């Protein structure tokens, strides 16, 4: 027998890396004009995994996003993929990872999912911290960088088999995760926080009927105040700057010169 699962996923709105991203000359942020946005790709992988688990186990999926009204686009995208309903934490202004983890913790306490699946990081700030904070503060198990043994061309992937394996009693989840030097496996007691790595799955495309259905799926509005979370940033961004442009490479005549340059010039060995 399979136990139904309730799964909470996140959908952060991030700048689409295909649009030209430029830092403002005064370093206070990036130039908003001409930017396009999309769901954080790691979150999209989380959505896909949740949908596969619920297709197998039955249950419910809920997607959360924090931001202004514009994040509805990402919530609707997740619902077009198949997520049942959405929670919108209405907030504009800067948020640090502690504030985000604090808000998500409260949403988890309210929703009581069996599992929260998040992207391991978002491709804008690349912090890789929210899932960990959240699990710690909730006192839940955590399995970060979820991946799988099968390749993205495998039959298991094509048949949309979930990579996360829930125990027969519905009380644990086994997660293959990327570690230095390969893959490792952890088993967590549920509820747990799982964060997704790149090779966990290939997210589905939003089908046209799904896009039309998403229109009428509910979005519940919450606020940081209502959740009782102080979101005043503890972390301040002082300045943004583009990385120095790469210098052209050089050609070395032989391995000996290469070794010598790595030692004396690059100082990496």
């Amino acid at each position, binding site marked *: 027998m399979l136990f139904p699962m309730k799964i909470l996923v996140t959908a952060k709105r991030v700048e689409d890396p295909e649009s030209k991203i430029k830092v403002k000359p005064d370093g206070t942020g990036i130039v908003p004009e001409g930017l396009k946005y999309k769901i954080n790709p790691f979150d999209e992988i989380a959505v896909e995994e949740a949908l596969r688990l619920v297709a197998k186990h039955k249950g419910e999926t809920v997607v959360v996003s924090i931001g202004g009204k514009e994040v509805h686009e990402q919530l609707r*995208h997740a619902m*077009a993929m198949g997520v049942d309903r959405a929670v919108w934490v209405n907030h504009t202004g800067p948020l640090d990872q502690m504030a985000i983890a604090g808000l998500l913790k409260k949403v988890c306490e309210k929703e009581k999912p069996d599992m929260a699946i998040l992207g391991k990081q978002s491709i804008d700030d690349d912090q890789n911290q929210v899932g960990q904070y959240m699990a710690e503060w909730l006192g839940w198990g955590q399995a970060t960088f979820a991946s799988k043994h099968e390749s993205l061309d495998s039959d298991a992937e094509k048949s949309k088999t979930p990579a996360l394996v829930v125990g027969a009693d519905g009380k644990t989840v086994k997660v293959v995760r990327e570690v230095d030097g390969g893959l490792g496996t952890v088993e967590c007691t549920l509820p747990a926080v799982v964060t997704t790595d790149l090779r966990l799955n290939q997210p589905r*495309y939003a*089908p*046209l009927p*799904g896009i*039309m259905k*998403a229109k009428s799926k509910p979005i519940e509005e919450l606020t940081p105040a209502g959740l009782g979370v102080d979101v005043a940033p503890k972390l301040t961004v002082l300045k943004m700057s583009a990385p120095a442009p790469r210098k052209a490479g050089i050609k070395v005549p032989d391995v000996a010169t290469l070794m010598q340059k790595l030692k004396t010039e690059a100082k990496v060995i």
Partner: protein
Amino acid sequence: MPHFFTEEHEAFRKSVRNWVEKELAPHALEWDRAGIFPREIFKQAGELGFLGIHHDPAYGGSGLDYWYVTAFCEELVRSRNAGVNMALLVQSQMATPIINDIGTDEQKREFLAPALAGEKIAALGVSEPGAGSDVAGIKTTAKRVGDDYVINGSKMWITNGTRADFITLAVRTGSEGFGGVSLLTFPTDVKGFGVSKKLDKVGNLSSDTAILYFEDCKVPVRYLLGEENEGFYHVMVNFQGERLVAALLATATMDLMLQDALQYGNERQAFGKPLNKFQVWRHKFVEHLTSLEAAKRLAYHAVELFDGKENPVKEISMAKLFAGDLAQRVAYDCQQFYGGMGYIEETHVARAWRDVRLLTIGGGTSEVMKEIISKLVGL
């Protein structure tokens, strides 16, 4: 965002673009070289609801307005493979709308539903070796024998022809001229049917275009679409959707070619400055961008009327004529702008230059558009 594209249209547009860029574009060159693309693509498009955008939801369509079709065409061109685009649009906008509009429940279940799901491949069989522009001159006959039609003749230039599971087929059931034409759903597993030849084409290389033959092919009378001898009217109505799609593909292709060229011209240097800085090219591009905007607005105007369930034959014919002709000049100049790279297969504009040639020929030639417009304006 123009008013006719709502949030849902834009969400749909994004989804199409995502699919096209991941599943089609990376294979553009490979499929052109192979002269075919995987059948699986129909299935994928069907599963995503891309083949039944405006068709009846009772048979797997989504019953949506024509702006979704517009968004679909505009994103599809990013495949940079005009053959795939044509194949998918023949399936969704040319071979199936007639069945959707006038088919019986039985015909819709047997042909329409699996075509919208991408499980069956559909073709439209109107043109013949002796009759292209002159549809009323078709010679393939369907003689009524008991409860069957017995079909003899041949069809020419049929897109999806080598692997179609069924053909929406124009046949002669009556006297000469337009009054004797009927339409049938024709399953290609019928005895006596075959592919005479897969045609080698100038462009749209990944799409299979074939000559087909019919020798005493028997199909039941229940496969007749609409009334006997009223097929010509439905073919003409169907042409409107086909021509509108052609106009939209033309504008979207020009858009893509110009965007690509302008980007190339920013980077490519000659005589110490980027190509875009040469006034002769700047002016040429500005002229094309201006004409393109006009072509696009004319096509949108036709979409708006068509979507309002009018039959804007004049506007659609004008949109196809204008965009199809313009695409020739835009493709020529963009290719010229690329210099030697414009003559290399890897460069999209090289293939696009060949592909756009079809836009003034297929689905009714530019001359035929002018004849239609002449009549409608009383000339």
